[in-house]
């Protein structure tokens, strides 16, 4: 399946886009997505941390991604 990862903050700079198309196997988990992202963008591994939000909620590593999900990469937040 192809999904599009929406990126904010420094993740947008690393991807050089705010909407990154990415090809994943069906039933990929958040963890598998992270591995694929880090393979393509080694800079990600240098961040203090980052999370994946699925449908506007922080997603644990074992959550499975469906084609219609809204998937967003959340680099370290710094609001306030």
């Amino acid at each position, binding site marked *: 399946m192809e999904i599009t990862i*929406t990126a*904010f*903050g*420094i993740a947008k*700079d690393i991807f050089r886009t705010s909407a990154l198309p990415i090809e994943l196997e069906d039933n990929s988990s958040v963890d598998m997505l992270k591995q694929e992202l880090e393979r393509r963008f080694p800079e990600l591994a*240098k*961040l*203090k941390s980052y999370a994946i*939000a699925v449908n*506007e*909620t*922080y997603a644990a590593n074992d959550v499975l991604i469906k084609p219609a999900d809204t998937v*967003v990469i*959340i*680099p*370290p*937040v*710094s*609001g*306030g």
Partner: protein
Amino acid sequence: MKSIDIQIKSSALSLEEQLAFVSDEASGGINVFVGNVRNQTKDKPVIKLEFEAYIPMAIKEMELIATEALSKYAINKISIQHRIGTLLPGETAVIIVVGSAHRDDAFRACRYCIDTLKKTVPIWKKEFFEDGAVWVAAHP
């Protein structure tokens, strides 16, 4: 009566408006946190800041913080507003207002809200210096 006010705005925040939302005759103690843009970070002059948010999720996370605060502390009403876009030193990025019958819970709940907001709400801040810019807290 609605006890939670959550907003993300691209224009100036209004403490007066948030205070009016929270004030009621049952709340004797109101605690407010105002987060302003500082003119320096580690002694380096800051020219401006840019805030961006993943708005729908940031609203959800702020609502979650407010709901948690209402369940953990004996408070009556809570308003959390965050500004996004370009801000100059001295301008206000966030205002949290918490009203309670007694002051202890107002102080503790307000502190809980700002501490948690800084950890969980998907909002990012880029600091601009004379010689470049950095995304705050991105790297260890």
